[in-house]
């Protein structure tokens, strides 16, 4: 959608103003209700009070503005970028703006979620409308004061001017503005007039982060709070039989030990005592002999790929005919392990369940849903649950799941004490909600140098690709196309992990395209561009990506990455992928040191529409690309008899600085509505790296992590 498209909703549905007792203007807007067309207001407008809004702008009499940012901050930068959008349309200098994490009111939560790289995309219209509406109210108030027509006045940088050359600051008219009707049909700025959007802004929490101020859930302290360290079944599927607490109780600082379900919590006055107490618990768990192992998963996933009873997810043309008539058929099977999220800040949450309320504080990507689940768990009215969000030491999907919040609430409910559950790294890695192990089998038919058929099968642990993915590239680009999926139900808990499914699927497909290019003797970039020519944007409404935008993105990456123009010591790999509404293409440059690949540089082109905050946007891409490379290279996690085989960074390898390439990011310039950046940089990275390694050594990598199989040999492709 172009930014100047007419907005179809009414601001009356989401905006409300009030004069502040202390002077100034408070504007509330219901951020999420305003995001969708035809959304019904939550309650009768005439009865709204400020509890019905989940974000606010406060304009003080001195003209300074406070924006309460509604969405959880997990390091993706929305606490900076979302307020920038409001400030742009409000037209105030960015250094007159301060940002606070929006307070939460569980009674009225709609969708305060960090997930799916959607915060900016959903917020774009609402945030602009809110800023522009507030600005118009200030202008109207000034015009009334001067006795002139508002249309003869202009406002910029916090100052309102009229045609007589008179000026008023926003702060001079806020009290009058608060009494006015909320205007409709305000004009939004043209992108060429942007003064804040598109100019880099530094993370609004920077000073607190670099000086070590309390910001995170793990830093939260409350009067009388006990620290809880929880002993959970070491193997998935294991049950608690009995435990002996004698030794644990003898540890200084240990106050209480409580069992809940198959878990035992040790409550102590400090973290060290709680952790020691947990280790000293003598727990008798049920036998783990018959529990799941990765070797079994491997066989189960193979059986799914070989079965005839998969779920059909998309089918175009006639795949059987294409394969029957093919000159050549290529087939590959790709395999990925489970992955833990490994947020640097291990899971933690504070809960104080008391007679009059349930107070929860901590890092959570899904505060609303989690608060409801807590209310259900401990039989409390949802209105009694008050949840405060803290900054999160990483999320990557793990903090979508409120399991650790439920633990804290349950322990506090049993003990009637304020409790903070704290995970050790071993707890965090061992009681995860992992990226599921997955296998893909891809088969392509080639006839007269063209790709005529494409058949993708997914076998995954617990659940399969979400519904949009079968409509990603190459859907629409290949006439005969089929996607099928199946899953194996496991006791091991799995869930979303940064760019769910596509974090591995993109590697599989983008590696496979390189082999197709080899088979038909075509440059890999040209192959992708040629396939995209088969797609007419808008013709098939189900197709998720834009062929034009993907083409432009690929061309920009190839140009900036000097595709095909490197010297003899550098080898290149290419990948392009659309996910989370953003198009990304990457060129990976590697060199070889005694046959070992050194990843030198990744050149990235991104089309995310208008870039709100280039400083933060580049940070997201740099992080996503290196994350993708790191997990493709090193991420390895398996189970034996239900037990995770790694529990800490001594054996589990995360990418570190010496292994990181320089990431150079280029944005496709356009005026299209912005889309998210937290995830889409990651998926293409693994494939581009695998293709570079193939270019350098001829080795075709089919399994992650690459580190386990990198060697110097060629594998045969044709079947």
């Amino acid at each position: 959608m172009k930014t100047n498209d007419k907005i179809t909703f009414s601001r009356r549905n989401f905006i409300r103003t009030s004069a502040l007792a202390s002077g100034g203007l408070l504007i509330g807007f219901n951020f999420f209700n305003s995001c969708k067309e035809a959304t019904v207001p939550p309650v009768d407008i005439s009865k709204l009070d400020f509890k019905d809004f989940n974000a606010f702008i406060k304009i003080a009499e001195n003209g300074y503005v406070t924006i309460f940012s509604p969405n959880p901050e997990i390091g993706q930068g929305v606490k900076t970028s979302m307020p920038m959008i409001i400030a742009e349309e409000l037209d105030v200098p960015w250094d007159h703006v301060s940002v606070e994490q929006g307070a939460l009111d569980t009674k009225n939560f709609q969708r305060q979620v960090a997930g799916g790289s959607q915060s900016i995309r959903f917020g774009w219209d609402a945030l602009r409308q809110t800023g522009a509406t507030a600005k118009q109210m200030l202008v109207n108030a000034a015009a009334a004061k001067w006795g002139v027509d508002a249309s003869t006045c202009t406002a910029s940088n916090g100052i309102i001017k009229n045609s007589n050359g008179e000026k008023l600051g926003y702060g001079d008219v806020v009290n009058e503005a608060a009494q006015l009707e909320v205007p409709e049909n305000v004009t939004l700025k043209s992108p060429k007039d942007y003064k804040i959007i598109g100019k880099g802004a530094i993370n609004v929490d920077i000073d607190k982060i670099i000086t070590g101020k309390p910001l995170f859930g793990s830093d939260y302290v409350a009067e009388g709070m006990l620290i809880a360290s929880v002993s959970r079944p070491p193997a998935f599927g294991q049950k608690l039989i009995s435990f002996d607490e004698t030794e644990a109780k003898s540890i200084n600082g240990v106050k209480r030990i409580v069992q809940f379900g198959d878990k035992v919590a040790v409550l102590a006055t400090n973290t060290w005592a709680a952790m020691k107490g947990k280790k000293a618990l003598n727990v008798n768990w049920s036998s783990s002999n018959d529990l799941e192992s990765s070797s079994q998963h491997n066989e189960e996933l193979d059986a799914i790929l070989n079965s005839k009873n998969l779920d059909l997810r998309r089918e175009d043309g006639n795949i059987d005919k294409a394969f029957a008539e093919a000159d050549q058929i290529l087939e590959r099977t790709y395999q990925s392990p489970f992955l833990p999220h490994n947020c640097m800040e291990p899971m933690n949450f504070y809960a104080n369940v008391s007679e009059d309320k349930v107070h929860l504080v901590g890092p959570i990507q899904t505060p609303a849903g989690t608060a409801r689940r807590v209310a259900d768990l401990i039989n409390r009215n949802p209105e009694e649950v008050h949840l405060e969000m803290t900054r999160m030491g990483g999320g990557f999907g793990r903090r979508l799941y409120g399991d650790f919040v439920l633990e804290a609430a349950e322990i506090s409910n049993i003990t009637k004490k304020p409790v903070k559950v704290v995970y050790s790294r071993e707890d965090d890695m061992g009681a995860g909600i992992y990226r599921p192990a997955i296998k893909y089998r891809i088969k392509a038919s080639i006839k007269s140098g063209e790709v005529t058929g494409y058949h993708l099968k997914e076998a995954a642990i617990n659940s399969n690709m979400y519904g949009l993915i079968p409509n990603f590239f190459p859907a629409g680009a290949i006439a005969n196309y089929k996607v099928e999926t199946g899953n194996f139900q496991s006791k091991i808990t799995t869930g979303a992990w940064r760019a769910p499914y596509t974090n591995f699927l993109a590697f599989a497909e983008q590696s496979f395209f390189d082999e197709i290019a080899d088979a038909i003797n075509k440059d890999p970039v040209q192959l992708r561009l040629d396939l995209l020519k088969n797609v007419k944007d808008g013709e098939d409404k189900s197709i998720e990506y834009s062929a034009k935008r993907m083409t432009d993105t690929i061309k920009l990456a190839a140009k900036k990455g000097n595709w095909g123009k490197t010297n003899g010591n550098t080898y290149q790999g290419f990948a392009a992928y659309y996910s989370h509404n953003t198009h990304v293409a990457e060129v990976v440059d590697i060199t070889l040191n005694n046959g070992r690949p050194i990843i030198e540089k990744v050149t990235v082109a991104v089309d995310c529409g208008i870039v709100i905050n280039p400083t933060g946007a580049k940070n997201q891409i740099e992080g996503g690309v290196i994350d993708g490379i790191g997990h493709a290279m090193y991420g390895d996690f398996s189970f034996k008899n239900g037990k995770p085989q790694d529990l800490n960074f001594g054996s589990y390898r995360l990418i570190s600085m010496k292994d990181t390439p320089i990431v150079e990011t280029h944005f496709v310039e356009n005026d299209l509505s912005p889309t998210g950046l937290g995830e889409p940089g990651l998926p293409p990275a693994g494939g581009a790296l695998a293709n570079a390694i193939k270019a350098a050594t001829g080795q075709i990598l089919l399994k992650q992590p690459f580190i386990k199989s990198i060697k110097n040999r060629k594998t045969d492709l044709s079947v």
Partner: protein
Amino acid sequence: MANYSLKVNGKVYNITSDDDTPLLWVLRDEINLVGTKYGCGIGQCGTCTVHVNGVATRSCLLPASRLEGSEITTIEGLETDKLHPVQEAWKELDVPQCGYCQAGQIMTASSFLKQNPNPNKEEIRNAMNANLCRCASYNRIEKAVALAAKKMS
């Protein structure tokens, strides 16, 4: 149990803790200096890095009771009243994403630059390699260490 005094950021604290309580938890739970973070508890990630007598040290394994007479500096005491050049560089280049590991990164970098005021790229990468950043803000950390070196020279 042990009774001992601990000098942190120039101030002396009288501490009673278990003999084996790591410095990290004394800082966080007893002295309420929470800028130093827990990441792994086995000295592998670097989020808990502080300075002991000016040298970057992992605080998660080091019993605090053995540190009587040592000068301990945490992120809160790296510089008072103004920002340390390393912190300035971190701000200028907008290094953090989630921010959780950054205190440890800054403590490692500031100690390293004292020992090697004019490092090359390779030396920076070696010095910072043992501090993990799950958000992978490594490119900016590298640049910020180089920028801080320039500011300090």
